[in-house]
């Protein structure tokens, strides 16, 4: 693969799937500096992974795989970069106490969902994220290298757990 081809693929991935990477980053890193560090790791790993991408799987599955593999073994505060890639127009963390009030706006619900995902164990967080994005059991199993059956078992618990948190009931 030539450098130009690698660059073209990377630019296409960024243009089409940056939102996906951001979702992974926000689901695993609570604060902006960490999110920035993790995003940089994800992007560097994606760049390096292009040589291994032979088109056998869907692009989204591959990007999920690389992003989640990076996030799952990522260690907070391992290294700090000087330059930030993320420039948030408004700060993500609102310092709100989770689940104190019923969510009023869709944006609040999404923020609370991110916070709820971050509170799950890492594997469950990955499954929840992909399920919320509408990936099939098969795709989730493929990304994580686990069985579809295990995805189903975990999802039953995750769905119950998230609904319970949002409804504030037992």
């Amino acid at each position, binding site marked *: 693969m030539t450098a130009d081809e690698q660059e073209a693929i990377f630019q296409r991935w*960024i243009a089409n799937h940056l939102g996906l990477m*951001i979702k992974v980053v926000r689901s695993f890193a609570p604060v902006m500096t960490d999110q920035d560090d993790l995003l*940089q790791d994800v992007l560097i790993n994606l760049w390096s992974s292009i040589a291994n991408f032979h088109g056998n799987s869907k692009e989204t599955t591959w990007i999920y795989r690389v992003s989640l593999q990076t996030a799952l073994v990522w260690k907070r505060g391992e290294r700090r970069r000087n330059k930030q890639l993320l*420039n*948030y127009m408004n700060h993500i963390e609102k310092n709100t106490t989770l689940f104190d009030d019923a969510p009023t706006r869709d944006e609040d619900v999404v923020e609370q969902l991110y916070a709820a995902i971050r509170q799950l164990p890492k594997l469950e967080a990955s499954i929840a994220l992909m399920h919320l994005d*509408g990936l099939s059991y098969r795709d989730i199993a493929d990304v*994580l290298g686990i069985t579809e059956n295990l995805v189903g078992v975990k999802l039953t618990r995750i*769905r119950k757990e998230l609904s319970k948190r949002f*409804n504030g009931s037992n």
Partner: protein
Amino acid sequence: MTFDDLQSKWQSHNHDVTLIVDTNDLMNEVRQKHRVFERQLLCRDLSEILAALLITFFFATIAVLTGQWTLLLCAAGSLFVGLFFITDRLKQRRRRSSFADSLPRSVDAAIEEVKHQIWLLRNIMWWYLLPLVPGIVLFLGSSSWQSRANGFAEQFVIAAVGVICAVAFWLVYKINHREIKKTLDPRRQELEALRSALTSSDTDS
């Protein structure tokens, strides 16, 4: 609110709306960071080789200039430590997993890497400290023997150097063992928990 409501809100939300990203800028940044990362690895390896060679050369030169042949043992010890470090680094680099691997294999690779780090630090006495000891002990012993007629002050200085070396070795040993306890063991446990979650039976709850 049902889970399906949550899912629908999640999917209709524009997750990158709060970001301003210049794709070209990002692309250049990533390319540059990738280069810097590769360069950092190369520099780290080269600096280790250089440091080992410099220390070896230093001890060997002093040995030749002063006729203190025991220092050649220190040089040999330094060379051994440097070679061990480089060989180990190269061997570990070959074992790195790629993203073509599945997640369980990638986690396995991360666990192996941490376990290897723990092994290195736990055995620092054998591969880092001990190879330097014979040279230092023989050097101090022979210096002490040669200066036995020069009085107490010189003997005291030699003994002080010995004590400083012993304290430095003890500190290196302790700091590395503390690093295992503080950072590496928790990291290993975290990765093993993730690995176990990935392989847990389908009926686990």
